[in-house]
């Protein structure tokens, strides 16, 4: 599809990476955006972002993905980015129970500071470290149901499910945005719109581990 008005994309979506420090937010993003991985990527201070262009249902979508520092002390700066986000990847580390327990806290933060219709995907990262696993897949799925979010277990290291998780988030967000647009501008209703509730029931197609 041709890009609109000289822009090289049809749709611009802002996504946000959230979760405790060290769960692998930056690594997931690097894997998704550049298909690269480093086990020791430098800690994120404040905020960073990456751009990824994808084709979704025939639309050229520009994803602007904001990566945040996970440490509590940086919340002052990171929280200001909640507002403009269309979708959130909420990440924990399957080998670190504390990061899983913190998800509910993050959900509260999202409810408090983000738009009410923001799409959320729950991601349990580092699923390649099966021998160190502290959070079962079933627990992750249960939490995902509780917060009405699709769920993926991923490994940025071995590239499991990373693309699926981000694409799911992108599609959900796109559809949600288009639904909003179509309800506000009925003439655009010709575009395909998925039921936004899909995110309430989906639990991720691709499992791993």
């Amino acid at each position, binding site marked *: 599809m041709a890009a609109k008005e000289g822009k090289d994309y049809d749709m611009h979506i802002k996504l946000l990476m959230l979760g405790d*420090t060290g769960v692998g937010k930056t690594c997931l993003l690097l894997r998704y955006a550049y298909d690269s991985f480093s086990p020791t990527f430098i800690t994120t201070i404040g905020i960073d972002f990456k751009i990824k262009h994808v084709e979704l249902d025939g639309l050229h979508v520009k994803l*602007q993905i904001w990566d945040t520092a996970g440490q509590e*002390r940086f919340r002052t700066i990171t929280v200001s980015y909640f507002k403009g986000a269309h979708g959130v990847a909420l990440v924990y580390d399957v080998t670190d129970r504390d990061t899983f327990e913190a998800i509910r806290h993050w959900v509260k933060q999202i409810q408090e500071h983000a738009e009410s219709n923001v799409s959320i995907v729950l991601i349990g990262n580092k699923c390649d470290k099966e021998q160190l696993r502290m959070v079962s897949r079933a627990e992750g799925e249960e939490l995902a149901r509780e917060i009405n979010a699709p769920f993926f277990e991923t490994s940025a290291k071995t590239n499991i499910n990373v693309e699926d998780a981000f694409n799911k988030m992108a599609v959900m967000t796109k559809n949600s945005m288009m639904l909003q647009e179509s309800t506000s501008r009925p003439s655009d209703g010709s575009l395909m719109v998925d039921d936004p509730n899909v995110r309430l029931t989906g639990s991720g197609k691709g499992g791993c581990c």
Partner: protein
Amino acid sequence: MAGLQGFLSRLGLGADSGPSSTTTSPKSAGQGEGNSWGDGNIKPTGKSSSEDEGNSPNSRGSSPHLGEQRLGKITSSEGGGGAPSANAPRSAQSSNTARVPGRAMPGRLMKASRTRPPPTDGGSGSNTAAKSGPKEGNGVSNLQSSSASSSGGVELNNGSQADAPSSALSPPPSSSPSSSPLPPPSSASSPKSSGSSFPPKPSSPSASPVTNPASEKFSKLLSTTSTISLPSLRSLSWSGVPNSHRGEVWRILLGYSPANRGRRDAVLDRKRGEYWKSIEQVGLSPVPSSGESGSPETLPATLTKSETRLLRQILVDLPRTSPTVPLYQSPEIQTMLKRILYLWAVRNPGASYVQGINDLATPFVWVFLEEYMHGKLKDNESISSLDVSSCVPPPVLSIIESDTYWCLTSLLSTIQDHYTPNQPGLQRQVHTLGSVVKRTDARLHTHLQDLGVEYIQFAFKWCNCLLVREFQPRTVARLWDTYLSEEGGFSNFHVYACAALLTRFSAELRAKVDFGDLFTTLQQGLPTEEWSDDDVSMLCSQAFVLKSLFEGSEKHLE
């Protein structure tokens, strides 16, 4: 000087703004930072050393905005026995005033326009300082043969000195050397017996086979007086410190090592001993490179839940500390950093460990290793890829570790509110940066605004990590030479260095017409990999001009 001229013209300052006759080293006024020990181990006891006394009045005289409310002077016990030298302040003042005309009018545009930033050819700004040195009332006599600082801290006198400070955490001085909790391998003698002498003796001019004028000046200053003139040292260091002297100079400028050489060994011994005692007190193993991995089960069982969480956070960050520099990936260095960061966090619960503080510890490790390895590295070797386990004996590592802890503590005490909840100091710096750039590089400021890039998005990291991530380690060391020599180097001057950095790359940044490109350039790092010391000197000079323009003139920034 083309870059500087361009910079000055951007500021609206004429080419005539720097008559060569005013070429001066920008003396640094009463440096307060570094003298306040923030961790509670050492409490400022009020009286400053003679150097600080001598220095501050001068700075006030020349700039009413500077140095009045600096926290924590060097304790009288730490500061280098200044008490008897009541004349020192006067001499320091006079000599200082004489060589720093440019600093007399920060904040005043017209006058500041005549302020010539310091020379950029490292060391050449020291000529006046060198001349002024002998004016210091004390210690003109040559004490070159003094062993001050040589092998300090290895032969432990263990805290029985009369200058023992009011140290709430310091264990009773009864601990004898034999019962010292210094790391086992340091067994009080190894460095000497192993042929290591660390820290090295103050270099005498003849120590270096290659005559290096800058190095000689430092050798002279550091070895010819019994009490080093801090104003002179700052003046000399402002333009850069040779690798060979940097460790010693940094320890002194941070107020960790006394300016009085006669007291140095005892003070350093005691502080190093205190560090290792504290490590045991907080429940960590003092064994060098004891390979506690990141897995929870290997954490000390004595820790509380919150302490465990803290330590785990640090352990998660260690492999992510300057990951591109092999040195910091070595188990020895990571174990060292773990203890340093943990102890600092426990001793400073108001801030605790904040990511980025790990970055701030690395320059000290680098500089002290460089000090030890001076003359030992082959041409194709660098500190960056140093094999610590084979090149640096454990006793030396233990000294480097404790020195890094104390120097980091001193540095952080000047910017504590960078890391307390909501990070107010850091937010303030970022805000000031925006105000300065708006005034000095309006085109860039507008460009950032037009593209929607906010200062907080990139400068947060600059201020949280004090530019450590924006430069190569050797370049950071050079930059911090100036920070350590400047009044409020980290808490204040740093902002102007950030502004100068932006201005330096103004054209490149304004050429970015897309938010993503611009943001990425700022966030991923400006092209400073190839920067030489001269580039840093130029940056510092520009920062100095900016600071002179705006310091104390908040109205200009609104």
